């Protein structure tokens, strides 16, 4: 597992998993712009789409996803160096009230025609510093309900465990780790 800087100032990173040749952010946005992949995904999850979003037209779901993904990608690209990333990411657990070490976080798409089903998932190293671990099209109420969103939970835990195994508990630890292998 490696990490790629998303923001030049080192406040946002993305994981590159060993089996991939691009970071997870690129992988996710490539999928969200792949019409064949999206059509197959929504064909498989057409019942969720109808139940939770009252949408039965798969073509429409595909176009909405591409639009939403493009806007989200532009938002990330255009993030001001001083932007408060705590505004973009929120705790994964809606009930979390206190700070946790390497908390699991989510960011939602900003689609304005209907609720966005796009999610980016990240580990919060400290206030304003995040590592993106993955992304998903979330059509159901909970992540455990579908295999692909459950997989994102697994990835969040895997990255968190990996960081802890390296003795990284915050951004200082992240820097210290790199310094130690320098």
């Amino acid at each position, binding site marked *: 597992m490696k*990490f*790629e*800087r*998303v923001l030049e*100032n*080192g406040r946002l*990173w*993305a994981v*590159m998993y060993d089996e991939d*040749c*691009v*970071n997870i*952010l*690129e992988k996710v*946005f*490539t999928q969200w*712009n*792949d*019409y*064949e992949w999206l*059509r197959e995904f929504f064909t498989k999850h057409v019942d969720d789409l109808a139940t*939770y*979003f*009252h*949408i039965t*037209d798969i*073509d*429409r779901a*595909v*176009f*909405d996803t*591409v639009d939403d993904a*493009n806007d989200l*990608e*532009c938002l990330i*690209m255009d993030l001001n160096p001083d932007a408060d990333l705590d505004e973009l990411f929120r705790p*994964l*657990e*809606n009930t979390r009230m206190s700070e946790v070490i390497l908390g699991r976080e*989510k960011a*939602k798409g900003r689609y304005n*025609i*209907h*609720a966005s089903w796009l*999610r980016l998932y990240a580990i919060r190293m*400290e*206030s*304003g510093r995040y590592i993106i671990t993955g992304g998903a099209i*979330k*059509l*159901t*109420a*909970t992540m*455990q309900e579908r295999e692909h*969103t459950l997989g994102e*939970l697994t990835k969040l835990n895997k990255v968190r465990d990996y960081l802890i195994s390296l003795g990284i508990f915050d951004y200082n630890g992240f*820097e210290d780790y*790199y310094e130690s*292998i*320098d």
Partner: protein
Amino acid sequence: MRVSTDKEFSILEKHEVKTGWKEKAQWRRENRRWLRYSGFIALTVMNRLEEKKLSQKELAERMKCSPQYVSKLLKGSENLTLDTISKLEECLDLDLLRTALSPVDEYRAQSNHLHVIAQPEQPPGSDEH
């Protein structure tokens, strides 16, 4: 909020990977308009294949091109030539150009209109995992 120093950046830079994410994202942004047309054509072709119960391989045979090219085309990120579009029209009995030139924006407008009639709801229970 803590600001990292130049030294900290230089240490991290030695070990991070660089896969050119930003360049790819920038490319998508700059080519967004024609990519949408390409996507529209890809979806129309996939729907037609399903309707006619044709495989991608069969389409490739009809078009006299490789199955790999058809697979690429269906991702919606190929800058298709008029020649390719005409072949697709011929092989699948479609009128892609006429449909695609009125097209995506009109489709969007229609979608928006439909949305006003039937407001989709947010999934219940918000975002608890």
